[in-house]
């Protein structure tokens, strides 16, 4: 029974998905299906909160770990899922016959993501990765403009498949060398394994699938295109929920490989990560400068942010990991706010060019204010979490003495100011275009969600103590495992 309680969040979300499937078969209306899914995701969030303090292993020992770290990440995933579902209530940009399936796939993918955060065994990890990806592949195709949908899905799917194949390939290396797929056993064998170059090659290949989800440099190509051509709520899901799990896995992998005193060769991994981070930041920011589409711009900004996160990841320290967990929570809220605005503005549009935001302050002061907070967060201006989070990330890297890297990151965030401010310029300083002057009135639910997200962004920015402590405890729990 205790075991069931440990996997309560995943179970709740999965059962909700099954229930939604049942509703689909019964032919309930869009609204009803959505309501069931929403209730399910709320229950999932509740289940996460219940299990927040629990520690244990529900299956065979070593296969699936439930601790504060995983449960915190699951809570974040569940909360983000709730927020995404808020936006997924019959979005006009999707094929209308797919409206009903949308919540179902979102729930399933989230279940997969949740499992990723807990998996401590390579095959489980891989399957969870696939479980989280399949539903999304299906969802992108369901754009009402069939060509756009196919384009986005093809790009996402092909690259996702390649990345996960590479992951599997890397896993086979590690299995071949260590004879086990259990992370705990790999960690124990690390002193011997660490001296073999092949192990590090395998580890890097293994990380590919997760770097892909995070949209870090060599696996970043999909992000702008897929954000651009998938239905807005789906893009929101990809940009927010699925990043969390990828970050969780990266944290866990690096904690296994990098923290260990015995792994002298961890330096190799670090150098690779540094190079990737620099490339991702520079490329993301420079490419974002010239973007005309809002979602595409957010795609490039996501690449840059992946770089910022890796800046702290390469420090291989508990400070760095804590900073990452902290920043992830904030990043999720900020990105969601921006996508929420994109969803609302692009309610009847296939794409959301930046020019569509023109005069937002007239059309909906509420959305304009949200956009302001979200964009300030992404820019890294106080008093938002974007600022303090970046401060933590940079602190972690500087503690480690990575002076040049942080300088590059800082200069990059100065470059980023231009395109973020350009968005605000359009939203605040320009008059609305002739064809869309209508007042935008988001539904009360969206308004509530937006208020919660804005509150999180500001709260974490002004009084980060509470979140920081939780993140720090979670990382202690993570570190205690290996």
């Amino acid at each position, binding site marked *: 029974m205790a075991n069931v309680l440990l996997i309560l969040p995943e179970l709740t979300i*999965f059962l909700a998905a099954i229930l939604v*499937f049942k509703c689909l078969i019964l032919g309930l*209306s*869009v609204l009803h299906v959505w309501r069931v899914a929403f209730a399910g995701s709320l229950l999932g969030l509740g289940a996460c909160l219940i299990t927040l303090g629990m520690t244990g292993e529900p*299956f*065979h020992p070593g*296969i*699936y770990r439930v601790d504060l770290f995983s449960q915190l990440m699951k809570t974040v995933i569940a909360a983000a899922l709730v927020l995404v579902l808020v936006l997924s209530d019959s979005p006009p940009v999707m*094929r*209308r*016959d*797919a409206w*009903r*399936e949308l919540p*179902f*796939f979102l729930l*399933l993918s989230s*279940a997969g993501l949740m*499992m990723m955060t807990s*998996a401590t*065994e390579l*095959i*489980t990890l*891989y*399957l*969870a990765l*696939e*479980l989280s990806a*399949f*539903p999304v*592949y*299906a969802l992108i*195709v*369901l754009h*009402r403009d*069939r060509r756009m949908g196919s384009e986005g899905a093809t790009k996402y799917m092909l690259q996702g498949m390649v990345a996960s194949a590479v992951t599997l390939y890397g896993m086979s290396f590690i299995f071949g060398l260590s*004879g086990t797929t259990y992370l705990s056993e790999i960690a124990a064998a690390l002193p011997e394994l660490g001296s073999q170059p092949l192990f590090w090659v395998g580890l890097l290949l293994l990380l590919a699938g997760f770097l892909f989800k995070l949209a870090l440099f060599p696996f970043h190509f999909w992000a702008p295109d897929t954000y651009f051509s998938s239905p807005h709520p789906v893009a929101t899901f990809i940009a927010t929920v699925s990043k969390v799990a990828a970050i969780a896995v990266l944290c866990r992998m690096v904690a296994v490989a990098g923290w260990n005193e015995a792994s002298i060769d961890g330096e190799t991994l670090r150098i690779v990560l540094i190079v990737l981070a620099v490339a991702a930041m520079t490329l993301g920011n420079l490419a974002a400068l010239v973007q005309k589409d809002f979602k595409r711009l957010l795609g490039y900004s996501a690449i840059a942010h992946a770089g910022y996160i890796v800046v702290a990841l390469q420090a291989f320290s508990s400070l760095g990991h804590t900073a990452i967990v902290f920043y992830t929570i904030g990043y999720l809220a900020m990105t969601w706010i921006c996508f929420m605005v994109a969803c609302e503005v692009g309610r009847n549009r296939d794409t959301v060019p930046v020019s569509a935001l023109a005069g937002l302050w007239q059309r909906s002061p509420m959305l304009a204010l949200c956009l302001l907070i979200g964009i300030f967060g992404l820019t890294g201006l106080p008093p938002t979490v974007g600022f303090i989070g970046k401060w933590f990330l940079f602190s972690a890297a500087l503690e480690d003495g990575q002076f040049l890297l942080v300088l590059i990151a800082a200069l990059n965030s100065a470059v980023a100011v231009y395109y973020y401010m350009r968005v605000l310029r359009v939203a605040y300083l320009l008059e609305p275009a002739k064809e869309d002057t209508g007042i935008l009135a988001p539904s009360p639910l969206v308004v509530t969600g937006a208020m919660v997200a804005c509150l999180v962004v500001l709260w974490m920015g002004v009084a980060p103590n509470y979140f920081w402590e939780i993140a720090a405890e979670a990382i202690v729990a993570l570190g205690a495992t290996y």
Partner: protein
Amino acid sequence: MALVIYYVLFGITVLFALGVLFNRNTVRSAICLVGVMAALAVNYLIMRQEFVAFIQIVVYTGAIMVLFLFVIMLLNLREPEVMPWYLRKARFWGGALSLVFFFTLALAVQVWTVSGVTPGAIENEAFIKESGTPEVILLSTLMITKYVAPFILTSILLLVAVIGAIVMAKRYDEDGQEIISEEEVS
């Protein structure tokens, strides 16, 4: 010696895989895929992973490929176009390939029987000798103890894939527009 066998087999696998990619005719592509699967199965066999090898043959080469062919034939059965240059002398190539295949197999059998040792099989073999349990039972035991989570996950994954495929393949009319019935929207 064993290495040579491996490389030859890998070469064949890659050739078939390329065939899958570059054939314009779908049926021919599918047949190439059968080749890939079969070659992989032989690989497994040489590595003494009999279980995997048989599963490979039964599931992939047998069931899945038949399904593939069904779908292809239902969708667009076309007359093959003009033969590409490398397939002009199909008989010659076919004969050559089967010869290569035959010799490889022969070599494999020889290596297997003479030396009795194949790379990669050592651990497994030792384990079997020790426990005395047949591989299948061993596998299934592992599947519900040590690897129970992946086992469960796989089943969920298959479910998702099936539903995803259904949703993606749902009604379209000629122009690629979706067909919406009124009661569905309300």
